[in-house]
Structure formats: C-alpha cells, structure tokens
C-alpha cells in the first residue's frame, strides 16, 4: 500500500504541476520575458498606463469594500445564530445560504431591472414620495451595483467561516472571563474576538479574492474598468499584446501579498480547545421581544439577499415590465423558450457533460488524496495537502488565462476544443471541496476497521473499497454533488475558455444571451432560474447527506 500511495502522490503531483503550477509559471514567464530578455517593462506599464492603473485601483477598492461590508453583515449574523435561540431558527439559518445557489452575474440581470433609471427601486421611492427625480444607479453608481450583488452573494461564505470560528471558541474560556468579572462587549472584544481571528481571516481572504477577481458581475453591470474585465479583454489578443500576462501576474502577486498581510495581521494560530468531553454551546434564551427582533434581523438579511433571485424570477416570468415596480404581465413563455432555444439546449447538455466528467475526475483524485493524507504520514504530505487546497486561492480567471496562454497551439488548444481544459479547470477549482468532504469522512473511520478486513484476507485496496468507502459514502456523495453543481456554475473559466458556440456551457450561454437585445435577458433569466432550482435541489440533497457538516466544506 505504501507503494500505491507513493505512485498516487506522484501522479497527483504531476497533474497539479501540469495544470496548476505550470500555467501559473508560464504566465509569469510571459510577463517577465520580453523578446527573450528579462524585463520589468510591463509592470512599469501597469503603473504608468492610466487606464490600467485605474482598473487596478478600482478592483482593489471593490475587493476591500465588499470584504468590509460582508464582514460587517456576517459577524452579527454569526453571533446571534451561535448565541441565541429565536423563532424559526433552523429555517432562517438555512435560508441564509440561499444566495449560494446562483452565480452572482445572473442575479445581476435581475438587479438591472430593479436598479434601472425607471426600475423598481426608483419607482418605489418616487411612489412613496421619498424621491423626486430618479437616481441613475447603473450610470453613476455601477460600482455600488457590483458591490451589492457581490456582498449578497458572498456573505454566506463569510458567515459560515465566522460561525465555524465561533463554534471553535471554547465556552469555558468565556466562562472564565465572566467568572473574573468580564461581560458584554468587553468580553467579546477581549476574549471572543481574538479567539475567532483565524476564522475571520479565512473568510475575509476568500471573499476578498473572489470580489477582486470576479468577472461576470462587472461585465453584466458594464463596470468594465476592473482588472478582471481587462484580463478578459486581453485573452483575445494574447499573441501580440503581453499586457495580460503582467496583469495576471500582478493579480497573483497581490493575492499572495494580501494573504500574507492578512495572515500577519490576524494571525493564523488556531487555538485548541482546552476542555475535554462534551462542550455545551451556550445558546441563550432571550425574552420574546428580543428573540423576535433577532429573527426579524435575520429575516431582513434573507429577504434582501433573495432580492436578486426574486428579480431574476420576475424577469424570467415577465411579459411586460416597464415603468412599474413589479411586472404588469406574466408569461411562462421564456421558460419554454429557454429549453427550446438551440443555444440553451446545447449549453445545458455541455454543462452536464463537463460537470459530470470533472466530478468523476475529482472523485478519483479527491478520494485517493484524502485517503492517503488521513492514513499515511509521509515526506511531502504537507506539500500535497497545500497543493490540493491551493485552487481555493487561485481565481478561475487566472487559471483560465494561464490555460489559454500555455496550451494555445497544443493539442489542448481551447480555441479548437476547450472540453479537456474546461473539465480540468472545473475539477481543479472544486478539488478542495471533494478532498475536504472525503477527508472528513475518512477521519471518522477507525483505521482498525480496515485492518480487520486486511487481517481476514482483503488486499489493502479491496479493504478500502469494501469497508471504508461504504462507510463514508454520505460524505463522498455530498462532495460529488457539490463539485457537480458548482462546476455547472463556474463563470470566469467558462467565459474565457469556451470560445466556440457549440462548446458553450450554461454560464457562457447565459452571458451571451444577456447581450442579445430583444428577448435575450428574459431567456437568460429563465435559464438562470432552471440553474437555480437545480442547484438548490443539489444543495438540499448534499445537506441531507452531510447534516451540519455541510458548512465545513466552505471553510478555509
């Protein structure tokens, strides 16, 4: 088995080197080597070119603003959910995760309707007499449109990380402080918050990187002066203009820098729990009024977070939506069109195919890697662990750009046939989830169960298949569902890698449809609703299989 493990580690390492590390390094080379000579010229260009500089500043500001607002929203949510009981708690905390079921740029289609000059928001304000002339949200305030959409999409991830961090704070540590006379805000600031730092750090980094490199939302809002859109534009002229390389390397460098800075600032020390035996989480009962206020707060967040979804559903259902808060006529026609349209039909088929393949790939790699990591101590295990987790921090945008740059002109050229690279990109990006899910499962299976099977005559691989895999099947299925459904929703790599219409996956299909003036956005919305329903069902299924452990998959 040691040999099997070794071969496996080498194979996985080779795969990750070829499709994760090598494209990144290749992009670096493109940025630093000009006409065969080492050069920093393009980085100078990043600084001196006014447009590029503006894009970088915009993206940084966007990332920071989204991170701060998301954290400000998620922290109180995590606190009240962890500490208080309130009406309909299970339902409401479940609904908090709803924004995850739709790629934010689809929500953006719906939000355009709401935020337009004569959109629902302005009309609502004017009807109420709070506003006299409409505000042009999408003209002067596209930035805020992007911020709102991204915050509403990303707060669940932040919330899950915070909740996990809070759950890891040993109540006896707080009790000790209370016992010594601390209470209220001081207790929170001096004891609870410092102990939560690793979770705060993890959530913030994920959210920042996501917002910093999100491509779909700025595109839909027409907020084009951000790094992601610049890189997207550069892909088409890779050969003759190496600026894209410099931008990509800049993004990677900045991401790494922010990661290190945040790590330094927050500290990544995980404080172990001191108490042994069961830990009784202090869920306090509050007076009915307080409980209702808390429930109202959570409900309010849920309601606002569902706004883009509602808007998308309305857009998909509308027959006539002009100068009114909600549509004045409804039709199911767009849903019908969405399933009948040649572009959508092929894109649905493609997406299912790509996602299924990437799920199989992730299943094989993820299960074996997780198994080896749980069961064996070997040289390089830390490195393998870090490598399979790295894709969490590598934006899809960067990966896709690297693929186009690296594999153009090879058999894998995405211009010819993007399928292998799309499948690999999906698989790589979601590999951490699969490894996490499988890892958690294997950890719970006592190694003696497997040894018992070996002892009775099973070769190691068969012992694993007959004993361990059945015991962790819930985890594996849940991991597979997550990989599959999130692969269906991959945006930036789909937009970049799928260049020919017959290879479009759903997200690219939606994106192309949006740009068609006439009925495009409506069909796109209908398609988005189908995707939403599908993803919601997947998540419910995964949640039923994993129970409370579902949240663990989205943490760093």
């Amino acid at each position, binding site marked *: 088995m040691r040999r099997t493990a070794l071969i496996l580690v080498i194979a996985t390492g080779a795969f990750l080197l070829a499709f994760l590390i090598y494209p990144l390094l290749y992009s670096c080379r493109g940025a630093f080597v000009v006409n065969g000579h080492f050069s920093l010229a393009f980085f100078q260009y990043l600084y001196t070119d006014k447009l590029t500089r503006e894009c970088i500043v915009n993206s940084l500001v966007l990332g920071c603003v989204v991170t701060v607002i998301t954290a400000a929203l998620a922290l109180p949510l995590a606190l009240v959910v962890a500490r208080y009981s309130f009406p309909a708690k299970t339902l409401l905390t479940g609904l908090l995760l709803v924004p995850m079921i739709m790629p934010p740029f689809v929500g953006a289609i719906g939000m355009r309707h709401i935020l337009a000059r004569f959109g629902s928001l302005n009309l609502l304000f004017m009807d109420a007499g709070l506003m006299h002339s409409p505000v042009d949200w999408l003209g002067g305030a596209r930035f805020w449109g992007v911020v709102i959409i991204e915050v509403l999409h990303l707060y669940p991830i932040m919330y899950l990380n915070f909740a996990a961090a809070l759950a890891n704070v040993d109540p006896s540590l707080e009790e000790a402080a209370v016992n010594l006379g601390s209470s209220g805000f001081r207790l929170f600031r001096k004891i609870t918050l410092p102990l939560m730092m690793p979770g705060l750090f993890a959530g913030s980094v994920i959210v920042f990187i996501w917002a910093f490199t999100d491509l779909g939302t700025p595109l839909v809002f027409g907020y084009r002066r951000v790094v992601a859109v610049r890189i997207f534009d550069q892909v088409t002229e890779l050969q003759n203009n190496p600026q894209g390389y410099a931008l990509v390397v800049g993004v990677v460098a900045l991401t790494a820098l922010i990661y290190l800075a945040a790590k330094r600032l927050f500290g990544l020390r995980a404080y172990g729990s001191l108490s042994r035996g069961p830990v009784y989480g202090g869920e306090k009962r509050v007076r009915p009024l307080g409980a209702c206020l808390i429930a109202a707060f959570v409900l309010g967040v849920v309601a606002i977070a569902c706004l883009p979804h509602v808007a998308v559903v309305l857009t998909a259902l509308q027959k006539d939506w002009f100068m009114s808060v909600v549509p004045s006529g409804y039709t199911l026609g767009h849903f019908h069109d969405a399933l009948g349209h040649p572009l959508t039909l092929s894109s649905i088929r493609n997406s299912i195919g790509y996602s299924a393949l990437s799920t199989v790939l992730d299943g094989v790699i993820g299960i074996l890697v997780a198994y080896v990591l749980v*069961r064996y101590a070997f040289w390089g295990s830390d490195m393998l662990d870090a490598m399979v987790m790295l894709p969490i921090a590598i934006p899809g945008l960067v990966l896709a750009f690297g693929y186009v740059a690296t594999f153009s002109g090879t058999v894998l050229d995405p211009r010819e046939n993007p399928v292998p690279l799309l499948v690999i990109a999906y698989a790589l990006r979601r590999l951490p989830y699969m490894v996490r899910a499988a890892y958690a499962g294997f950890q719970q299976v006592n190694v*003696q169960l497997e040894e*018992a*099977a070996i*002892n009775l*005559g099973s070769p*190691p691989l068969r012992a694993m298949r007959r004993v361990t895999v059945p*015991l962790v099947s819930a985890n594996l299925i849940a991991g597979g569902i997550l990989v599959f459904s999130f692969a269906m929703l991959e945006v930036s790599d789909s937009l970049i890698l799928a260049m020919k219409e017959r290879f479009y996956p759903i997200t690219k299909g939606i994106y192309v449809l949006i740009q068609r003036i006439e009925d495009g956005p409506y069909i796109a919305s209908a398609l988005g609703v189908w995707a939403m329903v599908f993803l919601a069902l997947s998540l419910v299924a995964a949640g039923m299989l994993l129970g409370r452990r579902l949240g663990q998959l989205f943490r760093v």
Partner: protein
Amino acid sequence: MVSVSLRGVTKRYGETVAVEDVSFEVGKGELFFLLGPSGCGKTTILRLVAGFMQPDAGVICFDGRPIVSVPAHRRNTGMVFQSYALWPHMNVAENVAYGLRERRIERQEREERVRAVLRTVHMAQYRDRMPNQLSGGQQQRVALARALVIEPDVVLLDEPLSNLDARLRLDMRREIRRIHAETGITMLYVTHDQKEALSMAQRLAVMSMGRVEQLGDPRSVYRRPVNRFVAEFMGEANMIAGSLLGTGAGFGTLRTPLGDLRAALGAGRLSAADQAVCMVRPECLQLGNGHENAFRARVDSSVYLGEIEQFVLSAGGMELRAIQSNPGSGPAPVGRETQVHFSAEDAVLLPAERPPESSPPEAQGAGK
C-alpha cells in the same frame, strides 16, 4: 495452526525504540500472553505478527517459515481488535462471513461455518443484528467469532477485554479459555491486566520498555520474578533490603533490619556481600508465631474484606503489607505488636538496583 517465533525483533518509531531485540516462541496450540504496562511494545509486537508493520530487524516465523515478506492479508492470522473493529455497515453474520468470502468459500459451507462459530460464541440468535444493536460483551463475541471462523493459523488478541466491565471480563476470560480448549488454536494474547494473564495464560512474557523481562508460566513468573519490575508488576510485593551473607542449595541469607532472612535465590546472579532485596508477597506473610524468618511488627491498620483481611505493618523502620485469608471473628490487633513470619520457599532474593520505571510514550499510535 502454527508455532510463532520471534528472534531479535526490533521496531523503532523515529528515535523511540518500541520493541528491542525481542525473542520468544509460541508453541502450536499454546495460549501465550504478552503482558506489560501501556507503551511497553506489546501491541507493536502483535501488529508486527499480523503484518500491519515491518520490523526494523529480526525474524518472525510461522512454523519456522519467515513471514516478514508476506503481506498482512495473506498471513492467515485472526485478529481481535481492542475496539472490536466490527464493520458498522454489516450485520453480525456478514461481519463473520467476511473472511470466508475472501477465501472464496462456497455459500453453503460458508453459512454452515458461520452458524457453527456463532454457536460456539453463544451468539447464534443475534446473526441478523447490526453491531450497534449489541452490547460490549456481545460485540466482543462477534469479533472473536469473526477471527475464529477462518480457522486462522494463529489468533491475535489485542486487549480484547479492556472495554468490558468487571463482571463481563470474568465471564469472557472463561469463555476464551473454553474456546481455546475446544479449538486448540495457537493464540497470542496482549494485555496489561496481570490477573487476566495469570488466570488464562499457559505461558507469558512480561514486557517493559520494548524488552521481554521474563518468560515463563504464570506460577513461576509470579513466585519467582527475575527482578523488581516483574515482581511489582505481577502483584503487590514487600521489598526488604539488605546485604547478602551467603548462599547455598538455591537459598541465600540476607542481613536486614528485620534480622537475617532466608529466601530462595532468584535468576539474577548474586554473591556474598551484594546488596539485594528479599521479595515476599503480602499473602505469604503470616501473623503469628513461626520458626523461619520470624520478626516482630506493629499493626498500623487493617481492612476487613470478608474472605481476606489486609494489614499494614511497620517493622524495622519500613512499612509491610500482609494479607490473611479466612480472618477470624476477633477484632484486628491494631496498634499492638505481633509476631510475623514467612517461609523461605515463598520469598525470593532479587538484585537491589531498581530498573527505571518510566515507560516510553504509548507507541501503538505512531504507525497510523
């Protein structure tokens, strides 16, 4: 059924030596015990025999055939794990039948053998239960049945009774002995419970810090330990220090604060004027007048337990423990002086130096 022999077996985890130069042989059909405190390397030896790890040095043989290069799944050993390791997704019959399936035993014979072995362990009526519907003792029986049904060359038992409560443990001791007597299979049994070893073993090896301290049958190991570690690990022992006056005919005389005491010579080489201790077990100290090894002691306290009575005595500036069986009806003579004696046959002279007691950290987890 095979004999199992280890010669010069050594296993290290990094810097820590878990098993050092261990040699012993388990005869065909023998019920052999490895006994020692946690971390002494006994479980490591069991796992080496099972093939879950490889020795760094030394040879392990089944019937004289070296088996170190044979992978675990081909060694035909039946292991009973401390945690039982019953597969929670299979019922009792499926658990038991697993090894038979691996051996491609036909369905009819398989069912026959499963039924038979479940009868042997008195679990026939539970064949369709899932493991989580069984009590600890029942799980134990299933684990045993699962190991026995494949008719292994040797059964390996890793602290099989440590998760059971005291009553059940006594029952299961009898059960395992009965099954051993019925099947006649070679068994290698690991435990830290010296009562378990004394009451069940045909022969045993006492281990400490990766080494075998003593090999022998229960009586000789209990009555004639080779050093202080074994003496104290096997049961309570009074250690009376002194210097050796002389030896002869297997006995020696020790000058002690209690007077000159005569006792059997142990395995350690002792010569005149050596510092030594006289080890005498509490149940061998008799209160009352006697001819041999008699001295006066004060009764400090007593605990009456019905079938026995325990005394704490002081004599010659040291504390001694004594146990009298069938205590009389009168009150204990607490606070009074009394005569105490023991038979030279019941005591043994051991080298004075005390082996270090600190044991290395529990090594059995290091390989996972």
